[in-house]
């Protein structure tokens, strides 16, 4: 194998000496293991041949970017190859379409900077953005501060070139699910390198907001801070980022002392009026809870948060003499944040360890950070005890094993606590389907089978619609129509994130199975508004996939497969959807244009100023539907600007204030209508939209009881992907037995 590797990348990029092997044996997790060989490709095209050579030799392989993960994801547990990708750093930005094509070693911060230089924005911003790589971000479905409003990496990855464990390269595209396939792209994102190696990815960029308001709020204690947070969400005030430095907990003679303030880092984004109004509201709420808000230069949240966190850690070190720390993450529903902080406090006290927690509070994504001096027996027991008790406690709070760090090596033994035997079996089958020889990052994420794995919990039969403003979601039977959902949300501070391009009478289940696009795709792509799905597999067993948490990266994200699955995996009985704050003011426009091409040109021109658009083709001409909406404050200024632009272009328009012209496009128009997929993508091409609509017949394509694929599967999918999909479909049927 060595000769082959040298032939591919050259002598100076293959290393077997001890210093190299040692230096690629670790990430930020406590455990490490040396690879046998370190290979550093200089070109993305070398990845496939390297993987092929490793496969021929039967050598396990771990792809690695910067090695900044906290879970041991980059640790070559079983030796073999460390495939170091940090020198694959090509970025190509299509400034017209707002797309970036990147190699896996691109540093997240570089992409942010590059996007900014072209007038766009790359949203995911993990705290390690200045060093971590996009490949790693994709492998863990990275989040960060601003995914509270904007979603995690998965929302922005359009396609992936994946090198499978035998060296075959396949393109996995967001649109696959609309063209007869399953959304395998969504499964690879967050798969921690266990399904193959990402050689290239196409990423969607968005426009930077017109205004950003950064507010820091000091609270005397965590309780008041959390009460303030809950009030914000109850009132429909959703910041773009809402991180909290909880007061560090220091053991003090059998007691526990909270050292210093709880400090919120909040970013408000939007139009100038929105940000100003939200800032005022935030100030009022903060003061009601005794908080001291402080308006900060906008756009400095990430740098300041990191700086102040490091400072706070150094203070903990100075006070306690504990110079090292172990940081881990987990997620709880926002409504249970207070309980999760109590849990951390109780365990910190019990084990008498200093614990910090600088975390993404808005997402319920806690980051307990245990400080210690040495890792000797007693200390290690206490650290592990604390860690275990928090992970177990989080499970009982309906939480997730990880909100952004992943599972890796660190939490693999806790997967059974969070996932049923059925779900784990589906994950195992899925992993085998991609990588039959288990060569890609073996020993991570999916635990070996244990007899004690629990069965999937019985889901209560429930026909009620449950709305939780606090968690920003609605749970509803799949047979509920969107119109009925909207009725249930009337008079609330929230509304649906997903307005399907099929009209209000479409049911949630239908829209999910057929992958109906979102009229507000600019804000949240339809599939990413689905937080959880309860599914009845073909044999009648129910699986609950996903959770009440917007940021949930435990295991393979099976819920994502449901979107556009046309019933092949089972029939959804309930769906949990994300909500967005209700627009305080909105104005809809219908703009007439002469040709579809003119419609596209208009959409491109206005992309940065309107958040929602649809283009309806009628006769030879087209009508472009635009919507200006503000969560807070008036849209008048932006309406004036838009109308001036339209007038200058010699266009005519209809305007409707207050209520949308028609939220749901009429059904008869649906087959000819075209949704904008966002301010960054070219419009969903007509073909795709038509196919999606043609496939729109509820229940069609349900998996037959003998487990065969429905005949309607389009033939165009590569054979390899079809066989992976067939294996997944079988696994869903089998897993539920």
């Amino acid at each position, binding site marked *: 194998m060595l000769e082959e590797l040298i032939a591919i990348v050259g002598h100076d990029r293959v290393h077997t000496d001890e210093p*190299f092997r040692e230096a690629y044996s670790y990430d930020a997790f406590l455990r490490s293991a040396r690879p046998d060989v370190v290979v550093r490709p200089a070109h993305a095209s070398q990845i496939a041949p390297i993987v092929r050579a490793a496969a021929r030799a039967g050598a396990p392989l771990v792809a690695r970017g910067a090695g*900044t993960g906290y879970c041991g994801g980059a640790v070559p547990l079983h030796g073999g190859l460390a495939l170091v990708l940090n*020198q694959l750093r090509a970025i190509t930005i299509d400034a017209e379409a707002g797309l970036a094509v990147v190699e896996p070693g691109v540093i997240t911060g570089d992409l942010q900077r590059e996007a900014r230089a072209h007038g766009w924005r790359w949203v995911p911003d993990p705290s390690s953005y200045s060093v971590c790589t996009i490949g790693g971000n994709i492998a863990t479905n990275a989040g960060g501060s601003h995914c509270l409003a904007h979603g995690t990496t998965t929302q922005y990855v359009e396609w992936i070139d994946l090198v499978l464990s035998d060296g075959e390269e396949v393109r996995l595209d967001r649109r696959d699910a609309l063209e007869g396939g399953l959304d395998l792209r969504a499964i690879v994102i967050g798969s921690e390198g266990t399904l193959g190696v990402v050689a290239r990815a196409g990423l969607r960029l968005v426009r930077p907001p017109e205004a950003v308001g950064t507010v820091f709020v000091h609270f005397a204690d965590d309780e008041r801070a959390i009460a303030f947070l809950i009030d914000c969400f109850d009132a429909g005030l959703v910041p773009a980022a809402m991180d909290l430095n909880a007061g560090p907990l220091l053991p003090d003679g059998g007691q526990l002392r909270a050292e210093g303030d709880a400090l919120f880092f909040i970013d408000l984004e939007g139009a100038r009026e929105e940000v100003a109004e939200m800032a005022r509201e935030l100030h009022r709420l903060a003061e009601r809870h005794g908080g001291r808000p402080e308006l900060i230069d906008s756009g*400095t949240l990430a740098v300041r948060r*990191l700086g102040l966190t490091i400072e706070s850690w*150094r203070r903990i070190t100075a006070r306690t003499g504990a*110079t090292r720390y172990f940081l881990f993450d987990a997620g709880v529903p926002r409504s249970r944040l207070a309980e999760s902080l109590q849990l951390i406090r109780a365990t910190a006290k019990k084990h008498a360890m200093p614990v910090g927690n600088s975390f993404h509070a808005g997402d319920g994504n806690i980051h307990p950070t245990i400080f210690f001096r040495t890792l000797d027996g007693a200390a290690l027991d206490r650290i592990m005890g604390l860690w275990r008790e928090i992970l177990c406690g989080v499970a009982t709070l309906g939480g997730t094993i990880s909100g952004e760090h992943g599972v890796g090596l660190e939490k693999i033994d806790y997967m059974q606590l969070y996932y049923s035997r059925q779900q784990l079996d589906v994950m195992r089958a899925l992993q085998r389907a991609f990588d039959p020889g288990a060569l890609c990052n073996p020993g991570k994420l999916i635990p070996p089978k244990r007899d004690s794995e629990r069965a999937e919990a019985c889901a209560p039969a429930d026909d009620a619609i449950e709305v939780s403003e606090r968690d920003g979601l609605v749970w509803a039977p799949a047979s509920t129509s969107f119109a009925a959902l909207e009725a249930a949300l009337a008079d609330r501070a929230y509304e649906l994130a997903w307005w399907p391009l099929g009209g209000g009478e479409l049911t949630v289940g239908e829209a999910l199975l057929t992958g109906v696009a979102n009229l507000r795709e600019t804000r949240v792509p339809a599939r990413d508004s689905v937080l959880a799905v309860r599914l009845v597999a073909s044999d009648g067993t129910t699986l609950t996939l996903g959770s009440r948490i917007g940021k949930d990266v435990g295991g393979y994200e099976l819920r994502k497969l449901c979107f556009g699955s046309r019933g092949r995996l089972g029939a959804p009985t309930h769906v949990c959807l994300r909500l967005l704050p209700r627009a305080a003011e909105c104005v809809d426009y219908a703009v007439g244009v002469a040709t579809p091409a003119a419609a596209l040109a208009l959409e491109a021109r206005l992309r940065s100023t309107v958040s929602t658009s649809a283009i309806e083709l009628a006769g030879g001409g087209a009508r472009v539907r635009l919507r200006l909406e503000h969560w807070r404050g008036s849209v008048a200024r932006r309406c004036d600007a838009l109308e001036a632009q339209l007038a200058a272009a010699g266009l005519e328009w209809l305007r409707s204030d207050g209520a949308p012209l028609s939220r749901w496009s009429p059904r008869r128009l649906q087959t000819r209508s075209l949704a904008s997929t966002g301010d960054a993508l070219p419009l969903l091409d007509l073909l795709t939209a038509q196919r999606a609509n043609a496939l729109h017949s509820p229940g069609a394509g349900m998996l037959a009881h003998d487990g065969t694929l429905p005949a309607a599967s389009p033939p165009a999918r590569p054979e390899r992907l079809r066989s992976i999909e067939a294996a997944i479909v079988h696994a869903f049927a089998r897993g539920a037995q």
Partner: protein
Amino acid sequence: VSASTAPPLVERDWFAQCTRCGLCLGRCPSFAALQVEPASPRGRVRLLADPQLRDAAGEHLASCFRCRMCEEGCPTAVPFGRLIRDWLVRDRRWSYARWRDAIDALAGVHGADVVARLAGAVEQSLAPPPPPGGSERAELALFCGPWISDEDAAAVVEARARAGVRAVVIDRGLAPQLLLDEGLWDEFVAACGALEARIAALSPSAAVEVLDPHCGRFIDEYDYWRGRPLVAAPRPSLLTLLQRCDAAARVGDGDVLDLTPATIGLVGATSEWLARSGRWVETLPSALAGAGALPHAEAPAAPLLRDLVADKRAWLAGRAGRLVTLDPFTRVRFADAELLTVPPRG
């Protein structure tokens, strides 16, 4: 004097203190050039921790620029710089053979005047010390470092004279620090001896005044490596120095504080000072990291520090806030020397 006279470094387990978070990677100019983990601060600490690996990894360890930028962003304050210096003075295979080589190596990074001053300072520091009770009597030994201009140094001497204190510039080059940085332990020890003798020759109770935090840092390093204080007289802490420079430079909210690449190792004091000041002052490495402006591998093996300085200037050009440097690359206005208080006399 042999390298073995260097004090034992391991006060505590510095190596284990590294949590391997990797935040140092984005700050390290040599990693930016070489792009391999063994040549990163995190990798070097890992390799240094193991005696066998340490011996095999000289090339990676020696690729460190000794700029100590990694220390600023380290959440657990691993003293990367001290660890590398310790290794350099113990493994002479990788340190410079002669101080001239070391100075030449810096020529591409710093301006010619700075290099000339460094060379002069080293020569002077290695020259035999004046006999005790020589003609140069003074109460105050001034440390200026190589970056403070002659005029600024003279302004301080004058200001002290007006206050009735005779001051003498004792160091213009931080020569011992430079020698230590390059692993020239014997020369370091010799230069330190000469320095001690020169201070002693001023007066038996001479005090030391440090004009910029960089020199203050050196004196801390001196104390550490020599295992005793340079002078018995009390001298200002780094924190005090920063506050004094702040008074002169009047650092304001939103300003950017230049701590790189030569103001090395001020991390702890700066953090504390910033925390107490209640102002938001970005330090340049953080600002650069935030702007994504640290150089990466586009031009491997380029003279990176020079690029870094150019990057800094370019980045700052597009920014509203002022750049405030408490030493090297922008200077505190020492014309305001009156603002600097005279330290207590020993």
